[in-house]
């Protein structure tokens, strides 16, 4: 591509690229366009092999001139991947295997016939759905942050230019002053998507008001919440959009350098981002005097080594500086004194990804989506006990019920919904009474949780609230940076107390002590991660007090999860004495009793067959007896 050194140059390129992308998707170039999901999840399921195989098959059939093949970013519906999509018919194939490629090429691409067996089947209506937009999972979604993901090839600047790329930047650079850009972002009402929900425009304004020879924009891509992968998918699906957002930020508050801090565990995102930066440098979209203006900007990538705490902005800045990732006390805030002591705004990937939309479409359009206090859309990583696991982008104000049941397709196996954990380990859980709450920053906090980066883990009746809190506490203990004493030692002590509760060693006093210590950790820790470290405990204690009491008073785990507080019991009335459980038992603790077994055929006793029983003193609670029993004779108690 030639250098894009002026607005007219950019306009020309945008025009051409838009035309050719449109032609490709609508088949006007006389070709069928095949795209394969190139997100991490699908790649792990061999989608790159599928792409390779497609190329081979197409070459073998001499279709190179009639079919184009590209990989694209994440489709979001990860539990159904890998995806292959065919334009212009807009046919979406799901759970594609390498062995399906032959059929796709021969039947669909050559024969014009749809491969029915690869279509999505609606679990309720049992109907096959051909088009992506007709799948319930996608119906309520609006893609702003995920703009272009699963549509454009993230390795090609041309495709980004053809799909609204750099229109926002152009408007900002050529028609607006930096102050006007900040005003526009303020007017949009966008709040930080990384967790805290601080208004992005205000953050920029702080930094804009400081005079300094150098300022920095830092993009926080250190996504550490267990189960969260929105930042990764955005970077993998449309890195150009995030760079554009970063450049707009830089223009707005006067930064000429930007740092992407991305986890080293995201090699695909890093590679695509790196390539995007290089390609933009080549054509002059990054560097000096961008689009012929006075604005110059350079972007760099720094890799994080996978410490949860480095998602905390001051720890992240330390890490970029090459220091140990430990939070700094605030004040001074990074906007005043950040990276290398210079004014710095740290914005999350998703925040920066939404900035181009605001500049391109206008603040009013963004602000028209969402609720009073939370504008625009939010990407959630929906997981846990829900049918449709994946990445969803919904307007703020969507209710939990819509998220879990309409988009998520409900709970598997018809189980009862128990809670949804939002905000990752720092968040809290919301229960049935909150199902019709519109999700936004303020309602979640008011209900004892938080938005966080957008993790949403659904739990059903089989999950034990204490066990869930125990899991999150163990995560937090591992991930505490070790700097301040309430977090370093306090979370360990909380974890120990919680372990006591799960093992039946807790008392009601333990619960009181836990609450007290949790409050101290919340009030006394240095950084936001420490201050929220006790949230999983406080939230589950508030929502499920009776479950905690059952653990310490009755010494029972109502969900039968905590191993020390539950037992596998063989009902002698139902046991037919088949001995399968005894043979499966890894510690040989199941033995026959002297109770005659239940006859297989009613009325026909089976001499020599006896009901079995488990020796509880030896049982390791592995559950293999229960999963093997064909007569429903074993239960958890």
């Amino acid at each position: 591509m030639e250098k894009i050194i002026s607005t007219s140059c950019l306009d020309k390129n945008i025009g051409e690229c838009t035309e050719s992308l449109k032609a490709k998707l609508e088949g006007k170039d006389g070709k069928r366009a095949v795209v394969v999901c190139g997100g991490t999840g699908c790649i792990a399921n061999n989608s790159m092999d599928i792409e390779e195989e497609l190329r081979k098959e197409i070459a073998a059939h001499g279709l190179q001139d009639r079919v184009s093949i590209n990989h694209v970013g994440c489709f979001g519906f990860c539990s159904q991947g890998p995806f292959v999509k065919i334009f212009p018919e807009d046919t979406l194939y799901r759970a594609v295997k390498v062995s399906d490629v032959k059929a796709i090429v021969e039947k669909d691409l050559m024969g014009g016939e749809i491969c029915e067996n690869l279509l999505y089947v609606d679990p309720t209506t049992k109907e096959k759905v051909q088009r992506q937009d007709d799948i319930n999972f996608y119906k309520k979604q609006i893609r702003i942050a995920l703009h272009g993901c699963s549509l454009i090839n993230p390795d090609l600047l041309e495709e980004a230019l053809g799909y609204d790329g750099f229109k926002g930047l152009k408007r900002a650079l050529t028609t607006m002053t930096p102050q006007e850009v900040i005003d526009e972002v303020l007017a949009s009402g966008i709040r930080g998507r990384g967790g805290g929900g601080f208004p992005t425009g205000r953050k920029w304004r702080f930094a804009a008001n400081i005079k300094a020879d150098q300022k920095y924009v830092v993009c926080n891509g250190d996504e550490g919440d267990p189960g969260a992968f929105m930042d990764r998918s955005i970077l993998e699906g449309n890195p150009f959009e995030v760079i554009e957002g970063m450049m707009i930020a830089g223009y707005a508050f006067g930064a000429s350098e930007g740092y992407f801090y991305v986890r080293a565990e995201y090699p695909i995102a890093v590679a695509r981002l790196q390539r995007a930066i290089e390609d933009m440098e080549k054509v002059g979209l990054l560097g000096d005097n961008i689009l012929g203006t006075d604005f110059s900007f350079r972007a760099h990538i720094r890799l994080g080594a996978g410490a949860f705490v480095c998602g905390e902005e001051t720890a992240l800045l330390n890490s970029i500086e090459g220091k140990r990732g430990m939070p700094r006390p605030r004040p001074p805030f990074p906007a005043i004194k950040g990276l290398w002591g210079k004014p710095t705004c740290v914005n999350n990937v998703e925040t920066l990804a939404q900035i181009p939309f605001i500049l391109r479409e206008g603040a009013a359009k963004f602000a028209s989506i969402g609720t009073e206090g939370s504008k625009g859309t939010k990407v959630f990583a929906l997981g846990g006990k829900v049918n449709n696991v994946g990445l969803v982008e919904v307007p703020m104000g969507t209710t939990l019920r819509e998220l879990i049941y309409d988009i998520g397709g409900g709970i598997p196996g018809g189980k009862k919904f128990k809670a949804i954990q939002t905000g990752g380990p720092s968040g809290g859980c919301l229960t049935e009474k909150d199902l019709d709450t519109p999700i936004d920053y303020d309602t979640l906090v008011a209900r004892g949780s938080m938005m966080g980066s957008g993790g949403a883990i659904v739990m059903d009746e089989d999950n034990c609230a204490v066990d869930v809190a125990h899991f999150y506490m163990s995560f937090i203990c591992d991930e505490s940076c070790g700097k301040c004493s309430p977090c370093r030692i306090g979370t360990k002590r909380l974890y120990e107390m919680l372990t006591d509760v799960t093992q039946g060693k807790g008392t009601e006093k333990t619960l009181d002590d836990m609450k007290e210590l949790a409050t101290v950790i919340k009030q006394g820790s240095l950084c936001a991660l420490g201050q929220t470290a006790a949230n999983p405990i406080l939230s589950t204690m508030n929502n499920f007090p009776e479950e905690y009491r059952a653990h310490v008073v009755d010494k029972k785990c109502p969900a039968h999860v905590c191993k020390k507080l539950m037992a596998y019991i063989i009902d002698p009335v139902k046991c037919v004495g088949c001995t399968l459980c005894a043979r499966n038992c890894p510690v040989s603790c199941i033995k026959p009793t002297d109770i005659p077994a239940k006859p297989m055929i009613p009325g026909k006793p089976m001499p020599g067959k006896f009901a079995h029983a488990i020796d509880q003193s030896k049982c390791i609670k592995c559950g293999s007896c229960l999963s093997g029993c064909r007569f429903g004779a074993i239960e958890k108690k």
Partner: protein
Amino acid sequence: MENVEMIDIKIEGKIYSVPKNLTVLEAARLCGYNIPTLCYWNHGKNSLASCRVCLVEIATARGGRLFASCVYPVADCPADKGFEIKISSPMAVKARRASVELLLSNHSKDCQTCVKNGHCELLHVASVTGARDNVFEGERTATTYDECAPGIIRDTSKCILCGRCIERCKEAQGIGILGFEKRGFNTIVGPAQNASFAKVPCLQCGQCINVCPTGALAEHREIDLVDKAMAEGKYVVVQTAPAVRAAIAEEFGHKIGEQNGTGRMVAALHRLGFYRVYDTNFGADLTIMEEATELLHRIKGEGVLPQITSCSPGWINYMEFFYSDLIPNVSTCKSPHEMEGAIIKSYMAKAHGLKPEDIFVVSIMPCTAKKYEADRKQNAAVNGLPDVDAVLTTRELAVMIKRAGILWDALPEEEFDQDLLGQYTGAGAIFGVTGGVMEAALRTAYHALTGEEYGPIEFHEVRGLEAVKEASFNIAGKEIKVAVTSGMKNAKALLDDIRAGKSEYAFIEIMCCPGGCINGGGQPFVKPSIQTNEDPDILDTYRQKRAKVLYDIDKGLPVRQSHNNPDIIKLYKDFLGEPCSELAEELLHTTYVKDRPCYIKDED
């Protein structure tokens, strides 16, 4: 406090006007509140805000939140914006107590036998916050106990991760031997990879020990060696470094700089049963004779310039680790106590009719690096015997005095033993402070070059605590440029200049510890939170106060130039011949090791 902008802050409902550049903790001190803290250091510049023992509530109309007062600027909580600092609010009091209780729950509680017994800041904050016993008992972080290094012992079971030592090492020596490692509950402080102090280029300066609030860092005690030598009937000769007398009285409740402890210290040493009690000042005078002569030789063209002093073993360690290409610049003189040890085992042994093997020399030093220096095989001049057999810090001497039941304030003032090595001069006394060696050398060099004494005696240009002091003297028509520095972070620039061939100096004095030996790693602890009788700004002023003791001693002595010490003159006349004679070279000079490995090698 002039020229500092003031700001009004509100503490517990009352308005106070305080300098705007302070932290809440410091401002509160001015207003009559002592907020407990552990990690606070250096006016909050080096505080990590990690211990959370200084939490206070900073309240606005929207409610109160807890902040670490050690780093929170008063500029960010002005009274006129509605901020109020609440030190005794229930939330703050409870949080401070909980922080201490949590620290105690992961702390080895062998307080009775801990080397910091009586000096422990954790115990202090436990007392003032009302920490309860065993409220948060649980697992303890795995312990590393490292006693392999010659000077310093590290016991992580007592470490509270305040990070002061990390900052101190960086700030004083610029090498950052210590750091945090691992994370969460497993976090510990230590050399990289949790290596032993003996396997890293640690200077053994002991600055980390001095700032450690607990017993996690301590010196290697050698009192047992002395006891054993005494029990074996050896002739145990003791010598004391100049800086020790400037600080020893602090161990017995005296304010810093209040008492010149020389007389009582000597009296105590006599009562402890030493065969002879000598002053290392004599060794210092001897060092000046040798070192000034060496300098004159170099100025005449025999050897390279600048010449750098060699009295400070921490500096010698640093040089051998990082700048051993500069060995030709470093004076070959042994440090004063090593010289004195060699003289004791040769000159004194002969005069007293003793076998050198039967003599045991103990040095009382303000220093932990001296413990390593005494072990160097290059410092064994007489029959391969170490010049010095044991090195005790000022703190260890205090332990010996206390365990003997000696009441410091009841002691008379006594004189050092006045045979052979008894006399000393003011020039020797000021060796214990940065600039002192330079000044002592200049007094003697002036005499050597001009044949007259320098009229004003004192060279004030090289005194003071600035990072680098420079001066130029015209002596007998010769322009002599000198520089003085302390702390390896400060020394580095001078050394880089020499390496680059850009140094203009003839003579450079380098001491390892910032401020010199008065601030050595073996000196009494300066802990304002415990030493309540000290001035509030003691951490900024203790070095000047101790230095003043030495300068006052110098002023009060009849002889103030090393070359005028009658015992030195006699030593050269009767025994050594002249400075840098063959015998002097053999006994009083040493060699250095290029690219020295650390204290022990991996295979050891």
